[in-house]
């Protein structure tokens, strides 16, 4: 099956039915291994056991940006290549991305209270991630507000590409401004500064959460294709009844 074949929703649905059980199984195994490694990881010499929050906070924070990146590529697919599944992919990803961003904010806040002495600080990293969360919510509202899917797709694609400007701001906010949030410790020049005892469980959890996203995204895309099929059949039914 070539990439062009996947432009056909029926072929995409057939592929999804085959792939989803394997993806779900791999996700469950990796997350279980990651959780076990996180539980067994030693305490940090400064943070104590609160370092365990890192194993769920960081993957959610990475995915909050990664999902918007996926949606930005899908937005290009809608506007430039007019790929039939591009808007389906973007619309299905938005609530999942919003959930990951919400979890990054909340777990960060719960980590910040014992370490920084505050749940929230209006610094550049926290504020830019909050803006990302609000953008996810506005995109979801836009898709619901515009009834015609093709009009909604174009408007959402433009908004997604405008919102992509926020991604480098989030990534480099800790370097450009003086923030309470710590600078990057994994994706940085010179390699990760984390000890292997923390880095390995963190990477396992990150891959596990990435597979979770892929599983949920494929399932949500399948639902969106079926929803659009329902809509077109209802329109056919209405026009037959009117004739």
């Amino acid at each position: 099956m070539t990439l062009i074949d996947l432009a056909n929703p029926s072929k995409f649905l057939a592929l999804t039915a085959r792939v989803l059980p394997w993806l779900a199984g791999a996700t469950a195994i990796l997350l279980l291994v990651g959780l076990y490694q996180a539980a067994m990881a030693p305490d940090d010499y400064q943070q104590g056991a609160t370092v365990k929050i890192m194993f769920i906070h960081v993957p959610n924070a990475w995915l909050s940006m990664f999902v918007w990146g996926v949606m930005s590529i899908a937005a290009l697919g809608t506007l430039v290549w007019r790929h039939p599944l591009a808007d389906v992919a973007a619309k299905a990803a938005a609530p999942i991305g919003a959930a990951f961003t919400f979890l990054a904010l909340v777990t960060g806040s719960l980590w910040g209270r014992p370490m920084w002495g505050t749940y929230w600080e209006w610094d550049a990293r926290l504020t830019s991630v909050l803006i990302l969360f609000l953008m996810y919510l506005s995109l979801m509202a836009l898709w619901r507000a515009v009834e015609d899917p093709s009009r909604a797709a174009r408007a959402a694609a433009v908004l997604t590409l405008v919102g992509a400007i926020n991604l480098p701001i989030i990534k480099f906010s800790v370097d450009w401004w003086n923030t309470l949030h710590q600078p990057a410790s994994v994706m940085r020049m010179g390699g990760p500064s984390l000890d292997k005892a923390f880095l390995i469980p963190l990477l396992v959890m990150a891959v596990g959460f990435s597979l979770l996203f892929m599983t949920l995204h494929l399932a949500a895309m399948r639902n969106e294709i079926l929803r659009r099929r329902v809509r077109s059949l209802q329109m056919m039914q209405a026009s037959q009844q009117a004739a």
Partner: protein
Amino acid sequence: MTSLGPYASFIVTSYALVAATVLILIGWIALDYRHQKERLRELETSGVTRRSGRQATEI
């Protein structure tokens, strides 16, 4: 496994919130799938077929 120390409530709450949110996402997607299949079955019963001539619920 080491003790979670004086900030155990923050750690446990974080993990519980992540688990609850992921379970809600999975449940919402599974329910949505059932709902869409149900709507397609209803349309199929009422005699509507796709332009290709295939049944509404057929892949």
